[in-house]
């Protein structure tokens, strides 16, 4: 191993360096106002995101425990884009009086989790996988409890850490069984030695349950609503987009490589959990009044749609997952961006509070409309293409009934997304949220989201590129 090999870890190393710089700034800044730190961070992180797209060589490190191939680079870049938008959206909130002394804390914690996710995605064995997973999880709990003057934020943090600990335990138990039956932790070796005996099936189920917590698959989803509601908006959007995306990326890779011999078993498990996840997520979302809870349940159902790409086990499946996560980042962050902006200025988070919003804040309402339509999968925005490709991936395997039930569920989801549209556009209200102007960073982030939502679908380049990099079972 020589120094050039370290370039394979450029995403991780850059992020570590970035975190160091922010820490250094924090220490050396002295007693002056620390608000410029967020702007510096945003610019630096933007540069890092761009560097990620520079083509470079691929390979593996540390005897195969760290793997980098083109689809993994793409996955990391997708996550980087998401975090960049979240930083933009968090900027206003971080500069409020209670929090402005602790900006660097927020940035560093968020970057630490991102580093963990990058290692997790690049893992070539279960040890690296687990290390990455834990590094990704623990700082999120601190982030959820970041707004420490609010009880609910603390509650969200403690719930998240307890649930994560439990799910990690289950996951580790499964991994220990895998090691016990195959004698290896390396993905390649494990894949060839899995024959599908009882203990290995059990190991898979434990692994599935552990990952189910992270992705929030029904019936392992119960933590999400409370945590999402309690955590600050930026953290909620991080949890529902980046955290979920990273978990589903590595889940797909592990299913396609390590557990491919168990396909007959996981096919049925996934079939049932997809239906449960989509349906339960939708049915609960129908009843929500608080927009953060509403988006939490809708994101559970979105995770179910993502699993449609896994069940196909084909190249199309992986491509559509990565593509949909990319689309989902822009769509969901558009919605969360608006919710966050309104919550920052007025503190209002309920659907009823949005009555008549179009008449006072037309631009925000339109961004929300576009974001929600993209989430619901209405053409011509990107969500339509993303969902269509996921359905195609499952239909390629002949799972037409599953696809039909999933598409019918998109109609249910359309109903509750339209409820928000109804509040904003149809209902007239004397107590509508008065007109306000957003700060520049929020506006840039929303503009980015809207541009992404329109461009990603209509320009075929992005999907084609991702599909070329993907692989099937």
């Amino acid at each position, binding site marked *: 191993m020589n120094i050039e090999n370290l370039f394979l870890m450029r995403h991780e190393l850059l992020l570590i360096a970035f975190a160091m710089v922010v820490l250094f700034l924090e220490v050396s800044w002295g007693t002056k106002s620390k608000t410029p730190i967020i702007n510096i961070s945003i610019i630096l992180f933007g540069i890092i995101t761009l560097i990620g797209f520079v083509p470079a060589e691929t390979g593996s490190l540390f005897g195969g425990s760290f793997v980098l191939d083109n689809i993994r680079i793409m996955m990391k870049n997708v996550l980087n884009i998401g975090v960049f938008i979240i930083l933009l959206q968090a900027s206003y909130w971080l500069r409020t009086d209670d929090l402005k002394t602790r900006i660097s804390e927020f940035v560093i914690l968020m970057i630490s989790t991102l580093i963990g996710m990058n290692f997790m995605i690049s893992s070539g064995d279960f040890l690296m996988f687990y290390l990455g997973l834990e590094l990704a999880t623990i700082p999120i709990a601190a982030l959820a409890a970041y707004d420490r003057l609010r009880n609910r934020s603390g509650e969200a943090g403690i719930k998240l850490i307890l649930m994560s600990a439990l799910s990690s335990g289950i996951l580790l138990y499964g991994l220990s069984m895998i090691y016990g039956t195959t004698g290896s932790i390396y993905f390649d070796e494990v894949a060839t030695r899995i024959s599908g005996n009882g203990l290995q099936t059990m190991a898979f189920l434990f692994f599935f349950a552990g990952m189910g917590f992270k992705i929030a698959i029904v019936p392992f989803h119960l933590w999400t609503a409370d945590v999402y509601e309690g955590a600050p908006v930026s953290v909620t959007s991080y949890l529902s987009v980046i955290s979920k995306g990273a978990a589903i990326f590595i889940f797909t890779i592990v299913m396609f490589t390590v557990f491919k011999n168990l396909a007959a078993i996981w096919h049925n498990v996934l079939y049932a959990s997809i239906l449960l996840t989509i349906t339960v997520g939708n049915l609960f979302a129908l009843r929500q009044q608080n927009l953060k809870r509403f988006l939490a349940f809708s994101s559970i159902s979105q995770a179910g749609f993502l699993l449609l790409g896994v069940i196909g086990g084909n190249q199309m499946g992986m491509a559509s997952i990565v593509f949909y996560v990319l689309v989902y980042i822009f769509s969901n962050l558009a919605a969360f961006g608006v919710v966050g902006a309104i919550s920052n200025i007025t503190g209002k988070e309920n659907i009823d509070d949005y009555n008549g919003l179009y008449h006072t804040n037309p631009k925000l309402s339109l961004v929300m409309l576009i974001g929600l339509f993209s989430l619901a999968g209405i053409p011509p925005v990107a969500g339509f293409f993303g969902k269509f490709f996921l*359905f195609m991936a499952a*239909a390629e395997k002949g799972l037409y009934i599953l*696809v039909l039930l999933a*598409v019918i569920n998109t109609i249910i989801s*359309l109903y509750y997304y339209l409820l928000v549209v109804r509040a904003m556009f*149809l209902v007239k209200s004397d107590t509508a949220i008065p007109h306000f102007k957003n700060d520049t960073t929020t506006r840039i982030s929303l503009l980015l989201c809207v541009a992404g939502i329109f461009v990603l679908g209509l320009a075929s380049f992005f999907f084609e590129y991702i599909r070329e990099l993907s692989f099937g079972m």
Partner: protein
Amino acid sequence: MNILTLLIIIPVITVIAIMFSKDLKQARVVSAIGMGIQLGVAIFLMFSYLAARKAGDTTEMLFFQDVMWFKSLNIHYTIGVDGIAVAMILLTGIVMFAGIFASWNMEFLSREFFISLILLGTGVFGFFISLDLFTMFLFYEVAVIPMYLLIGIWGSGPKEYSAMKLTLMLMGASAFLLVGILGIYFNSAPQGGALTFNIIEIAKVQIPVEAQRLFFPLTFVGFGVLGALFPFHTWSPDGHASAPTAVSMLHAGVLMKLGGYGCFRVAMYLMPEAANEMAWIFIILTSISVVYGAFGAIVQKDLKYINAYSSVSHCGLVIFALLMMNKTSMDGAILQMISHGLMTALFFALIGMIYGRTHTRNINEMGGLMRVIPFLSVCYVIAGLASLGLPGLSGFVAEMTVFVGSFQHADTFHRVVTVIVCSSIVITAVYILRVVGKILLGPIIDEHHQHLTDATWTEKISTVTLILAIAAIGIAPLWLSNIISDSLTPIIDRLTLLGH
């Protein structure tokens, strides 16, 4: 540039121009100019199509263009038209143009109204020119979703309920459609080779019959819901009654035709074996639509509900005629689509104008309107006569062709349903004449109706455009019928040769 692509670009440019307009006056002028140009392009398309056919061009689709979109999935932007599509585009152009003038005084959020309306139109134009199932499906949904805002914001009565019901039912139908399209795609190359969404390519192969049995009903019902197929027609009366005038016109006049058009262009054309096998089920359902819709119109008191149920009946007749699967009846089906499109648009326009004056749509609260607003009343009578099939107007030509065609079947089943469906003509006459007698003739019931003003110039443009088109089809039906029947040949061939 391809003239068909122009049909999508003009509305999009119009929408962008409306965004920059300041108030109602500018927005409506921009819309009228945009849709005027669009109508001009549609008429020009008609004549260049005729010229090309006259010059001996016998390819199935003219103005064909094929642009690769998603290469790895073989999704193309493929466009092209045959005579049927040209006729439907012309219909859409006329109704859109009339619709803009019918909503000339839309004060509330006028920019947003015209933008949504024209976006809806873009979807419809895109649908009719598409030859690729993916883009066709995309445009289908683009045409449906603005309805939610259009009815929800500018509608009347229980508008939120109607808007939600209509959107969810039509999008639910598109769920079936999506699975049907995916099924067609993955069975589009039974002998191996590249899978395709291209309708022309798929029509050259035979989709395995087992797959057809699964996907034909999904696709047919998916489109059928939009064509108000019983028992999925319930969105239609509520939706039409609550929608603002121009939207009712466009929706009943054009959007419901998307259903019938899709039924034969996609479901029956691509899966002829299953279509022959299962036709009887849908024939029964559409017969119910026709008769039930007509009876429904008899008992209603609200003018819009009467016309909405009448639309269910007439659109049921379209699908009924398509399922008869011979040249005469399918020819009649297309004629009926166009005739009903114009006639119902005229009806809804007039109802909107009458309602704007009397502030009621209840037929028991009106009477003797012929004396105070003679222009609108005469137009209403003309629309009514076209609807009940008076010779010389478009409705007669269409219905006559349909019934002649469907009676050509010699077996008892087809004969019996034809007789039953024929009875709807009588029922139609009952509800049309009842309304005409009640609201137009007789004494003036309401004192306030003494001083109503007759049609303004914009309203006259709107109604006269539609009446001219209706009369043109009625007087010279062969002209239109010839364009259609040439284009029907490949579809009929496939349905009869492969099916038996």
